[in-house]
């Protein structure tokens, strides 16, 4: 099991968000978590990555058998967990190249080969249809929402994570940009042995990324699990009209 979350309870600002949340992701699987606004979907991402604002009061998270709750954000990232936020922030004055050089040095303990580093950066920019000038631009500085998502994928290709968490990356993206982003993610998926966790409102992204497992989040826990048909059903009928026939037991979820 690559990622295993057991009976996780999470609080933010003294409010319970996740309650007995369980999730298992095996190597190579692509999971999607759907749910209405404000239900705690982003809390899952932030808790896995280790944002200290999110307080884990109960439960466990294992990543490749390591206890993630004992690791800080940096250590979790070094283990291979990578989060693409729905609104990546900008850090003026810190260029993509500079940040990536430091990150790779910290990960490998070796000074990067500048020629190979630059070559890979340029090739990835071309693949993502972003200008090569982004390499020496401040992180997400002055970039549109779509450019920021692509910029995050530029980082992803350089850092080569094992588990990719996508937090509503389709928000703020036009149709063409969503396709570029998804095609790029699929290419990364094919070339690397990874798993993907997708957080989203609707079925579009799940279809484009060929999600293998769909979960519905409600009241802090997964209340239903299925295949892509479940996402389609929610897309058609909404969350309120959700058919309880899809409700599954804890045992079924783990299958």
């Amino acid at each position, binding site marked *: 099991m690559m990622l295993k979350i057991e009976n996780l309870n999470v609080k933010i600002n003294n409010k319970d968000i996740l309650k007995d949340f369980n999730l298992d992701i095996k190597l190579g699987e692509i999971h999607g978590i759907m749910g209405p606004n404000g239900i705690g979907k982003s809390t899952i991402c932030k808790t896995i990555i280790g944002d200290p604002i999110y307080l884990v009061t109960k439960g466990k998270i294992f990543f490749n058998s390591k206890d993630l709750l004992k690791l800080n954000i940096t250590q979790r*990232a070094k283990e291979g967990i990578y989060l693409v936020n729905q609104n990546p922030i900008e850090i003026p004055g*810190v260029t993509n190249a500079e940040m990536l050089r430091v*990150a790779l040095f910290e990960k490998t303990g070796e000074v990067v080969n500048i020629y190979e580093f630059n070559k890979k950066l340029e090739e990835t920019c071309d693949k993502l249809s972003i200008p090569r000038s982004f390499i020496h631009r401040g992180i997400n500085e002055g970039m549109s929402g779509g450019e920021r998502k692509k910029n995050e994928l530029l980082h992803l290709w350089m850092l080569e994570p094992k588990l990719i968490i996508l937090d509503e990356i389709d928000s703020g993206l036009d149709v063409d940009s969503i396709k570029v982003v998804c095609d790029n993610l699929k290419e990364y998926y094919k070339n690397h042995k990874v798993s993907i966790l997708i957080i989203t409102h609707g079925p579009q992204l799940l279809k484009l990324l060929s999600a293998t497992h769909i979960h519905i989040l409600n009241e802090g826990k997964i209340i239903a699990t299925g295949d892509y048909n479940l996402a389609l059903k929610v897309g058609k009928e909404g969350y309120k009209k959700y058919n309880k026939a899809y409700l599954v037991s804890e045992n079924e979820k783990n299958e």
Partner: protein
Amino acid sequence: MNKLNMNNSIINDENNNIIVSKDSIYTIMNHSLKTFNIEVKSNCKVIINDFRIIDKEDTNIKIKINGKASLIYNHSFINKNKYELNINTTYKSEESEIILNIHGINDKGFNTTNVSGIMSDKKNNILIEDIRLININNGSGIIIPNILAETSKIIANHNTTIGTISEDELSYLMSKGISETEAKNLILTGFLINIFKDKGLITKIKEIIYWR
């Protein structure tokens, strides 16, 4: 006599007065000049890039600007002890522009930044003050922005912030696998160099910043 080295040329007199009558870019690196008076003549565009690591110092800068001229003063500093920065701007005519970009890090030190923009009744002038301080290691600072305007036919803005290293920025960089210490170094360095466009200057600043 104090000498101010600007782009490899010595441009000042005994009273540290600088009169600029053509488009110019000036660079000041770690200069301890305490008084600095600059007058920009009509139709000139001037950029001054000023970086300092300060132990104990007062800096007084007086800017006079004539009609249809512009001046951008970019100043970043690391204050390790005590730094009082006073900037006084005066508009002598109309249709001119002054932009002040000041980014300071108070590293244990205390800083007072007084910025005074005297726009009086001269019309169609622009004054933009953007002053940001980051306090680390119990450093602290005060920003006192003043704008005097006696006509509505001007644009005058000031943006001032005092804070510490952004938790969001820190978490973001750490989520890329960068340690907290290195992430802080990147953020602080980026904050200092972000107001400059001169790549040569940026490289020099990175070389002398002591935490790198």
